[in-house]
C-alpha cells in the first residue's frame, strides 16, 4: 500500500527523544472510520505531535471526471462523500449549471433542499451513533441507526438507492417526489423530534460522556478561520459561518432557520452544534414541504452540454463546505474538475487539537470532526 518507507514516522515527525514513543493509530483503527493513519508521538500517555497520513482510498476522482461527460460524472460524485451523497452531487451539478446557465425550475430547487436537509439528518444520525460508539456508548449507536433506517427507507422509495442515490441532474432531479412522500417525511420528522429528546436524556447529560468531551480539543475562533475549518467545526468555535446564509444558493434565502454556534470550541461544543442542527434541518424540511410549488422537476437542458469558462460552486454539506471548481473548454467533457473537501482540510487540525491531550482524547477529536475518508482521498 502506501508509504512503506516511513513506518516509524521519522520522516514526518522527526527522530523521537529518549522518552518519546511513536504510535501508529490506524490505518485499521475502529475510531478512524475508514483507512486513516494518524502518526502520534507520545510522551507517556500525552500526545506531543500528531499528523494525518492519508491517500489509502485515493481513486483520482478528478482525473476520472475529465474523461467522462458531465452527466456521467454525477454517480462518481456520490462516491466521494458517501454518507452525504446528495450534497456532493449538488455541488457538482450546481457548478455545471452555473457554467452553462441552465435554469432550474422552482419545484426542483425545493426537492433539492428537502432531500439535502434529509441527507444532513441521515448523516448526523450516523455521526451521532458512531461518535457515541467511539466513546464507549454502544446503545446510542443502535438507537441512532434505528432512526436512520427509517430515513433510508424513504430515500429508497424516492431514489431507488439507500446510500449512493445518483438523484440530482443538471437542471433538476431525476424523478419527482412520489405520492405520499410528504406524509412519510412528516411522520418521520415528528417521530425524530421525540427521539431527539430521548437522545438528549440518554447521552447529552451523561457524566462519563461529559468528562470525556468537555475542554478537550479546543479550537479558537481565529485558528478555525486560519485553518480553513467549515461546517460544525468552525461553528463550534463560535464563528457563525454557514454557506447557506453567507452566500445563499438554491432557495435557502426563503426559509427561516438559525445557525447554531458553540461557545468553547471544544469537542462538546461541536457535539452540541450538530445536535442543534437536527432541529434546524427539521424546520427547513417542514417549511419546504409547506411551500413546495407544482411544476417541473427538471428544467430544459441542452441535449449536448458544452462547457465553457470556469465556475466554483459551494454547498454546505453535513461536514462543512464542499466546493466544486469546473473548467470547460467548449467540449462535453470538463477540462478540469476540482473537488474541495471539508474533511481533507479538517485533518490538518489533528495536530493543533490533539497535542497536549491523551491518546484517548484523540479518538474524541477525530469523532468530533466527523471525517469520511472517501471524501478526504477522493
Amino acid at each position: 500500500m502506501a508509504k512503506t518507507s516511513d513506518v516509524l514516522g521519522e520522516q514526518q515527525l522527526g527522530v523521537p527523544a529518549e522518552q518519546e514513543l511513536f504510535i501508529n493509530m490506524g490505518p485499521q483503527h475502529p475510531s478512524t472510520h475508514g483507512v486513516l493513519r494518524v502518526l502520534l508521538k507520545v510522551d507517556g500517555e500525552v500526545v506531543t505531535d500528531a499528523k494525518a497520513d492519508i491517500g489509502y482510498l485515493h481513486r483520482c476522482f478528478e482525473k476520472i471526471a475529465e474523461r467522462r461527460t458531465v452527466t456521467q460524472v454525477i454517480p462518481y460524485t456520490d462516491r466521494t462523500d458517501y454518507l452525504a451523497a446528495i450534497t456532493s452531487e449538488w455541488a457538482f451539478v450546481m457548478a455545471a449549471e452555473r457554467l452553462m446557465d441552465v435554469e432550474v425550475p422552482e419545484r426542483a430547487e425545493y426537492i433539492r433542499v428537502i432531500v439535502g436537509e434529509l441527507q444532513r439528518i441521515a448523516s448526523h444520525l450516523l455521526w451521532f451513533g458512531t461518535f457515541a460508539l467511539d466513546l464507549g456508548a454502544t446503545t446510542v449507536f443502535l438507537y441512532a441507526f434505528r432512526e436512520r433506517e427509517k430515513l433510508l427507507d424513504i430515500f429508497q422509495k424516492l431514489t431507488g438507492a439507500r446510500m449512493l442515490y445518483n438523484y440530482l441532474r443538471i437542471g433538476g432531479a431525476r424523478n419527482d417526489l412520489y405520492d405520499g412522500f410528504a406524509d412519510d417525511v412528516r411522520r418521520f420528522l415528528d417521530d425524530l423530534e421525540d427521539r431527539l429528546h430521548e437522545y438528549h436524556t440518554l447521552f447529552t447529560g451523561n457524566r462519563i460522556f461529559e468528562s470525556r468531551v468537555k475542554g478537550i480539543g479546543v479550537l479558537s475562533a481565529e485558528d478555525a478561520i486560519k485553518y480553513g475549518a467549515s461546517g460544525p467545526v468552525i461553528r463550534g468555535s463560535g464563528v457563525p459561518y454557514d454557506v447557506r446564509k453567507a452566500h445563499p444558493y438554491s432557495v435557502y434565502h426563503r426559509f427561516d432557520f438559525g445557525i447554531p454556534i458553540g461557545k468553547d470550541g471544544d469537542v462538546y461544543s461541536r457535539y452540541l452544534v450538530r445536535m442543534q442542527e437536527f432541529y434546524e434541518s427539521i424546520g427547513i424540511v417542514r417549511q419546504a414541504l409547506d411551500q413546495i410549488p407544482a411544476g417541473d422537476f427538471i428544467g430544459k437542458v441542452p441535449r449536448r452540454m458544452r462547457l465553457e469558462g470556469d465556475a466554483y460552486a459551494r454547498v454546505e454539506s453535513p461536514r462543512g463546505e464542499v466546493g466544486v471548481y469546473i473548467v470547460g473548454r467548449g467540449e462535453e467533457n470538463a477540462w478540469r474538475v476540482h473537488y474541495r473537501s471539508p474533511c481533507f482540510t479538517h485533518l490538518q487540525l489533528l495536530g493543533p487539537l490533539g497535542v497536549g491531550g491523551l491518546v484517548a482524547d484523540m479518538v474524541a477529536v477525530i469523532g468530533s470532526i466527523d471525517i469520511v475518508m472517501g471524501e478526504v482521498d477522493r
Partner: protein
Amino acid sequence: MAEREDKARPEGETAGAQTFPEEIQPVVDLLNKHYPDLSPAMRADGWLEVVVDRQQSPEFFRFLRDTRGLEFDYLSDVTAVDYEDKGFQVVYHLISIGLRADRTHRRLCVKINVPRDDARTPSVVDIWPTANFHEREVYDLMGVVFEGHPDLRRILLREDWVGHPLRKDYVDRRPPRPRVVEKAPGSWR
C-alpha cells in the same frame, strides 16, 4: 437559480464589463487604487476574479488579508489547471469571514499563471496555514512546486509514484488491462 445569485451577475456577462454589484464595488475600488493594472473582472458565477504575476504574489496575498475593507482571512481552496501550451494556472478562492461586526462575506478568486517549464510559485502557508494540505495536493497531482512550503511531499499518491496524474501529458505507465466480458452460459443475450 436563486434570485440572489442572479442579482450578483453583471449585465451582459461580457468579460471586463465595468458594472459591478454594489457590495463588490468597494473591493474593486481598493484593488484598483493599490494595483492599477490588475483589471478585476466579474465571473458569471458571482466571483470577482483577478490574475496576478507570481513575483508579486506573496505581497499581494498579504495585502488581501491585512487591508481594512478586504480582509480575506479564509482560504477556501487552492487548485491548479493545466492549460497545455499556455502553462498552468494556480487558482485560489478567498472569502472574508471576519470576527468583526460587518459580515459581508466578500469573495475573490485569484489566479496565477505559471509557465510549464518552470512550474513553481511562492507558497502561502505562512499567510493561511490551511494552504498546507491544498498545496501538497496540487504538488502531488499537478506537479506545481510551492516555494517556501514547510513540508512539500506527496499526500495522496505513494512516495515512489512517477509523474503527476492531472497533467494533460501524463502517461499511465501501468500495463494495459484488456476489458474482458464473458457471456454467461445460457445467457439471454
